[in-house]
């Protein structure tokens, strides 16, 4: 009787969701992996099985590894800066300072603007506004467009991504701070913990669940960055800021090597899955109950 009932419940509640999940995530994913083993070009009717030839194509594609390395560099900068900054701002914004709700909304706003739009806005800022500031003040820093120099263009990408992602993370950290129990804080103060000790021994462990989420979100978003990359630099100058996701797209659709592009996407997926899996595993271990 009981099992029959739960079968019905499963069909009613889980099946539609499962169906959608399979239809739009699992099946395309498995199919995509299958495509890496064929020579399909996206158009032809026949797909020939060619084994691991596409993967050896990936090995030969030096530009892919360069862009992957760049992506790692980008991820390290973005994840660190975003989380430190968001944590600090969230801390300030939960201490009851004047107008904190206004600030919370203000910091969150960039996250509401789509990456493409944001990229174009900042492109204007970097290549026009900064340059005209440079012209009128004579500051060396703003003399030429940041986007025309490989190092500065990379910094520009990091700056914009940090600006966009921080707001969201601030929101999660703020929620985490609000959830901290007053009793525990008070007890810690009575026990003589203050300032840095309180932050390290009491707040950080209790905030670990927020940190897990934020690290996971920033990691996966930074690895898969495409929209800001496309609209802000589009790989310029001369392909030096092309991140892995963008390279995969270019390989598949501009160079029309679908198989190799798909194989690169799969490799990128494995890397991101392993890294964020490890991150979740280790940060989860640090989580404590109040």
């Amino acid at each position, binding site marked *: 009787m009981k099992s029959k009932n739960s079968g019905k419940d499963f069909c009613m509640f889980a099946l539609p969701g499962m169906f959608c999940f399979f239809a739009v995530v699992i099946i395309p994913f498995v199919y995509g992996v299958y495509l890496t083993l064929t020579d399909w070009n996206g158009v032809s009717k026949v797909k020939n099985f060619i084994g691991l030839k596409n993967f050896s194509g990936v090995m030969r594609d030096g530009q892919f590894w360069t862009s992957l390395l760049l992506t790692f560099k980008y991820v390290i900068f973005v994840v660190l800066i975003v989380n430190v900054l968001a944590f600090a701002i969230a801390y300030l914004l939960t201490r009851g300072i004047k107008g904190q709700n206004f600030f919370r909304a203000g910091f969150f706003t960039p996250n509401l603007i789509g990456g493409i739009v944001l990229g174009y806005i900042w492109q204007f800022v970097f290549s*026009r506004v900064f340059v005209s500031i440079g012209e009128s003040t004579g500051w060396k820093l703003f003399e*030429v*467009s940041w986007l025309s120099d490989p190092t500065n263009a990379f910094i520009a990408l990091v700056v914009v991504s940090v600006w966009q992602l921080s707001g969201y993370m601030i929101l999660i950290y703020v929620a985490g701070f609000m959830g901290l129990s007053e009793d525990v804080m008070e007890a810690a103060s009575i026990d003589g913990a203050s300032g840095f000790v309180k932050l390290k021994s009491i707040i950080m462990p209790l905030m670990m669940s927020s940190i897990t989420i934020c690290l996971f979100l920033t990691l996966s978003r930074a690895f898969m960055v495409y929209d800001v990359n496309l609209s802000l630099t589009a790989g310029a100058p001369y392909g030096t800021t092309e991140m892995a996701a963008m390279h995969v797209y*270019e390989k598949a659709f501009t*160079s029309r090597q679908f198989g190799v592009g798909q194989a690169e996407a799969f490799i990128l997926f494995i890397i991101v899955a392993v890294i964020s899996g490890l991150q979740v595993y280790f940060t989860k271990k640090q989580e404590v109950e109040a």
Partner: protein
Amino acid sequence: MGKRIMKKVISSGLVLALAVTMLTGCRFGFASDPDDPNEETKEVPIDTSVDTFEYDTSLSGTSITLLNSKAEIQVALEKMTAEYEKKSGVHVEVMPVTDGDSPYTKVVSLYNSGTPPTASILDTTDVIALAEEKAADLTEEPWVAEAEGYLTEINGKIYSFPLCIEGRGIIYNKAVIEKALGESFDPASVTTQSEFVELLDRLVDAGIKKPVSMAKEDWSLGAHQLQYIYETYEGTSEGAQEIIEDIKAGKVDLSSYDRLSQFLDTFDILKKYNVAKGDPLGADYDEMAIDLADGKTAFWFNGNWAWPNISEAGASEEDAYGFLPYFLNDDKSDFANQKIQASPSKQIMLDGQIATEKEQAAAKEFLSWIVFSEIGQQMMVKTCNIIPPFKNNPYEPSDPLSADIYTKVHEDKAFNASAIVPNDHWAVLGASMQKYLAGRSDREELTGDIQKYWDEQE
């Protein structure tokens, strides 16, 4: 209580401000904003009184789709298809390829979802990639005879309709040159590279410190500039194909290939007089059009598709703009110094796989209508503002750049060559060209990049 009233006042004030701005319509925007809603477009009148085209009445009521990858004629195409529907009863839905999507990606994804467009406007390379697998054979169509020299044949068959001729070269603003030099300027008087440099130097002396604009975009550098090395091999598409095969096979040593070194000489000249010399990769495309129209510069390397930008920057159709050839050397008899490049660029391909026979017939009729009906001919030139490759079309384009190309094509002052290169040529070698433009690589490295690119092709 007072606080609450304050809040109310502020919020209603905000609402009011928003409403007012919305109602009046923001009147700010950049001079070159292509979507500026305040801009007034003038209608070119189309004479619809004469129409001798014979419509197939059995097709009336058919509905077909047309994928448009030429964004600047989207509105014009809609007008054109509306006119066609009035006459024939065939509904043509024009689907734009959105910004950022490549036409090829779009058409492939439509094929994979089983709903391909009946007709699609594509680049020649895309047609070559898709034709034999997907396209309808158009070899027997009546317009084929009118477009001699502008057709793309694949294994002896024609799968695409050449939509327009586009040309490129060094655009000049005649008024600016004449004003600076204080004398009349005859573009035909500049016949060699040295004479061009001489002219540039005179302009510099006359106060135009940096008279040239050069786009930093990879499609401009990698496709429009660099492809001269193939297209000027002998000035034909076949010649371009030949030299590409030779480079691929290693039969031509690029470091001693004369067209490459000549091309780089000219490129260096443009680079030297570039208005954005201080930061060539920071150059802004819209600003170049404004600079040319305002007279800050006198030349811009580009093609006739740049007219909408120049016109939005303030130029009018009565102004004198035109093309100088991309001078390659000092040999007056070299065709590269006498002619500009102009060849068909966009092609319409019909689906031969999913579309029903009736839909295919309707699409074929639409193509014939463009070529043979008086209305189609007019709308092609006047509404879409393109240069048709069909001999029987008597109308001349009105904007100065297209008009210049039109004249040059008819006076044999243009060479019809377009190199068919792999689809990522512009992106990969565009990046190498950017590096060279920025002065971060030398000729040797650039030549090496080009050779490496071709070595990697199968």
